[in-house]
């Protein structure tokens, strides 16, 4: 049994769903970051797999872009997280409700 496109895509979907459940269920802001990273990489897997399948390099280039952006996003995000923690003393989402309308 060799790996086909379907396997990659199923892997991508599984990763994505795991990330999504993390986004929904997790209450810690840091964990949310991890969950989003998983979702981004799920998209990357799908992009690379499809790119290779179609024979078009654009998808793989796009995956590289996403990695670069994810890296910078994490840098900024972590900085913000530290600031939030310093100010509020917690990263629990249930306690961070300043924007309540």
């Amino acid at each position: 049994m060799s790996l086909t496109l379907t396997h990659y895509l199923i892997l991508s979907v599984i990763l994505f769903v795991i990330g999504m459940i993390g986004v929904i269920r997790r209450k810690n802001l840091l964990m949310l970051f991890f969950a989003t990273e998983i979702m981004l990489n799920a998209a990357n897997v799908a992009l690379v797999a499809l790119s290779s399948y179609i024979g078009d390099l654009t998808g793989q280039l796009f995956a590289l872009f996403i990695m670069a952006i994810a890296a910078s996003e994490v840098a900024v995000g972590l900085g913000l997280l530290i600031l939030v923690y310093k100010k509020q003393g917690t990263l629990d989402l249930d306690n961070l409700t300043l924007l309540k309308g």
Partner: protein
Amino acid sequence: MEKLLYIALFAPLVSSLFAAIFAQRKKMQLVGIVASLLIIISFLASSALLSHLLSGGAVVTANLMDWIVVGDMDVKFGFMVDQVTAVMMVVVTLVSAVVHVYSNYYMEHDEGFNRFFSYLSAFVFSMLVLVMSDNFLGLFIGWEGVGVCSWLLVGFWYYKPDQPREVNPSISPSWAANEAFIMNRIADLGLLVGIFILYWNLGTLTYSEVFANLDKLSGGLMVAAAIALFIGAMGKSAQFPLHTWLADAMEGPTPVSALIHAATMVTAGVYLVIRANPLYSQVPDVGYFIAVLGTFVAIFAASMALVNRDLKRIIAYSTLSQLGYMFAAAGLGAYWVALFHLAAHAFFKALLFLGAGNVMHAMDDELDIFKMGGLKKVMAKTYLYMGVASLALAGIWPFAGFYSKDTILEVAFNEHTYGIWFVLWLTAGLTAFYSFRQVFLVFEGDERYKKYGFHPHEAPNWVFIALLPLLVLAIVFGWWKEEFMEFVTLILPPYEMSEETHHVAWILILLTSAIAIGGIVLAYIKYANGLKRDPKIENSFIYKLLQNQYYIPVFYDKAIVKPYAELSDIAWKEIDLEMIDATVDGIAKAIEVTGDKSREIQNGNLSTYLRWMVAGFIIITILAVVSVVIK
């Protein structure tokens, strides 16, 4: 010449604006003087224009500016002074000038002195726009302008409270003003429709172009346009069935009644028919209808004047009746005769009204002629003035009314419309009777006013000097009949009596004079030696019918005003509140409730937001999948 035209037109506007500056202030004599002078200037300019035309000058035209230029529509703010307009201008400005001067006396103790002059001058300006415009739209603007000024002036004492109809038939000044305005609005719709018909079919509104292209209209359209324009004229000139407002408009100050509701504004309808004579000449059936309606109104109004006790209302009904004469003449195609009677009537009727104003002033605004009597001892000069005006109104030789009214009767005879002739002849008798009934009840007989504690006094001399032009014209104006005819028939169609009529003319004159003198004699016998009231006659059905104006105001009240008010009530409570308001409120409510409910989403918890985002994502994904599958 163009300058004269602009001076005549805009002097009243300047006067109005000048008075308006001080409208809220206490009485300032200066305002009255300046306004009177400016109107006199306007009169002089109009006279200069008239003499220019009399000496054979060309028609004066002026184009102030482009007014409406939209697509194919091109209406200029243009003015034109031809023979008819010049006559109208001189009549309007002369009567206005006299009334302005007179108002300095009549309104001397009124708090709204300055305001009054502002309105009065604004009226003169609107009236001049009406008669000087060279197109139908300008006429319409003036038409509405005089309507607004009439509303302002009838309701001048707007603070007077409403009274039941039995106490005061016109209820209150503000009620009367609204009635006049609303009735005129109804008729104005007719005028507008007429103007639309002409514009749609001819593509122009300028008189000269419209009348030059009349043959492009089909017969039916021409009849429709003629009728629609006449409906407008019916409202302004208070012809049946839109006549009730005129008598009620007597709630306004007396100079207003003299100027607007006797001499000028109410004749605008006659002016419109005269101006549109090329149209009406083409549709003799409509013309005949106008003549019949005018004849009917003449006797109808005269009959109501027979029994009325209100000094001003009697004159108002006589105005109505004389307007009927004018329409009869115009409808029969004798346009210059209608214009002649219009001018003569303006002079003697304004004189009569201003004389009545003197009486009112002397009697502390009492209007009931049964409470007067014997005033000749204290008011000899007013007696003379009103007597001359009444003689002119009754059509006694050699006063102005004799010439103009007799010519109308001759026209009716000449057209072989003997029915019209007979009714008008009868009306001449009634006219003589009621006008002298009034004069004798006021000035002759026992001094009943003493019983009611009045202390009448004569007006100052300068007032009589101011009225002198009207007095002179009420006497001599008729002598210029031939010259007048030659002058205005330069643009109006000439009207020649047949040979046959010429032969019997003297008999007609004799007959008319006989019935007029008969009326005066009867009035003298009955009323000159004091008032003897006969309860049998006063309680008779006809007397009551006439006194209540044939119950037409009551009928309008019951048949139109009340149902309309109830309909409005239903429309307000059932339709507006229950349906329209409810719909609008419902939309607002739905939005509010949705907002209130969805506000809970925004609880500040990032976790919830993310869940909603995921929910949205799933919905969109499902939609995408479904749309792909469906394809």
